[in-house]
């Protein structure tokens, strides 16, 4: 269920129709509920963040924000936040369910790499669509600018997370230690 929800969520991010995103948002919510039931509230918060990001993407599309550069930047912020929150959800759920144990530094590092990996996968999928389907989702080398923006926002997000953890906002990572 969880894997299916994540898969549909990501595929839907590649679509341009908000009606495809809407069910994916619902799925993200279900995913959040699943996690709340099985572990703790923090996972629910993270999933809610992913859900909120999808809503933001939908609103941005409905109001035609993507026609200018600012809109494109906003979309990159949304994708960066979605990947970061999903990366964190993966790490925290692995800590909760698989007996993984790590300190905060390692948890943040893992989140960073997984988020960047997810961004890479999105870009690679877009490129694949262009190559196989003859689409023009990616124009020349502009995607490189997108990925650099994404990486920048993800690093910024990691910094925010570091501050959040230091300020003792309840974000439990490093549950199982030996």
């Amino acid at each position, binding site marked *: 269920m969880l894997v299916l929800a994540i898969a549909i969520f990501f595929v839907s991010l590649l679509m341009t129709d908000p009606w495809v995103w809407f069910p994916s948002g619902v799925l993200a919510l279900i995913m959040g509920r699943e996690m709340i039931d099985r572990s703790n509230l923090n996972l629910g918060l993270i999933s809610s963040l992913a859900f909120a990001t999808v809503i933001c993407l939908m609103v941005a599309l409905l109001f035609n924000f993507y026609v200018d550069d600012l809109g494109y930047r906003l979309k990159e912020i949304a994708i960066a936040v979605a990947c970061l929150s999903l990366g964190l959800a*993966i790490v925290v759920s*692995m800590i909760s369910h*698989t*007996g*993984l*144990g*790590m*300190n905060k530094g*390692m948890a943040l590092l*893992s989140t960073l*790499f*997984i988020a*960047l*990996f997810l961004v*890479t*996968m999105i870009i*690679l999928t877009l*490129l*694949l669509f*262009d*190559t196989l389907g003859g689409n023009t989702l*990616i124009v*020349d*080398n502009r*995607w*490189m600018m997108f*990925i*650099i923006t994404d*990486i920048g926002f993800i690093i910024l997000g990691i910094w925010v997370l570091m501050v959040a953890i230091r300020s003792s906002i309840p974000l439990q990572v*490093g549950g*199982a*230690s*030996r």
Partner: protein
Amino acid sequence: MRREIWYNLIIWGTILILTGVLVYSIVALDYWYHSSKGGIEDTILTFFPYMLAIFALLVLLILGWKGIYIFPIPILLAISGVLMMHDIGIYMGLYDVYIEWWDKVAHYVAAVIVAYIGFFFLMYLEHYGRTIKLTPTFIVLFTMAFTCTWGVGWEIYELISDEILGSTMQYMSYIDTMQDMMSDIFGALTVSGIGLWWLKRNSAETFVDHFSADKLVNFSRKKMGRQDKVPAVEAEPSDSSD
């Protein structure tokens, strides 16, 4: 002792070959980036791949000399191999004549090395870290993510080089970039698969028995101002009869 000799021999041999390739390409093939010997950008682009490779090899050499860490010989051979592939590809014009597989194989081998470095890092973390307990699934996931991130980093470096110095590392095509990233993913998948297979049968302790990093860990801890050392020295039991 024999391992140290091989270690030094491989590094010095690689330096010698790389220097020979550079000299041969400039003297015999009249190699110069963009074929114009005037601009500072072209001079940088001409010598940069060589300098980068020599720097990497010198770091490995110093680590070995100081006894901080000696890379396993197969990994060292792979590193030397990919440095030679990259430099020979540039200086002998193998990238430019569109031997497509040359670029892809270089990416694949480089990805394998980066993935191994990520895998080693996690194995050492699992063994030496006090609060770290990793699972095989996480190790595989992290290795994949780590390698692909480095792959993207390299592509960004290519873009910056193309934009600032006017090189043509991306061949003005995002298809080439995509294929490079696919090669990186295959490299990451190879190591992840082997790593998963190995982890099902062994543990981090077995790994560290083969590839100890005690000196590297002690060196890092000393730099961080920590006093504890590995392996932990067992306290002598005090003789209460005295």
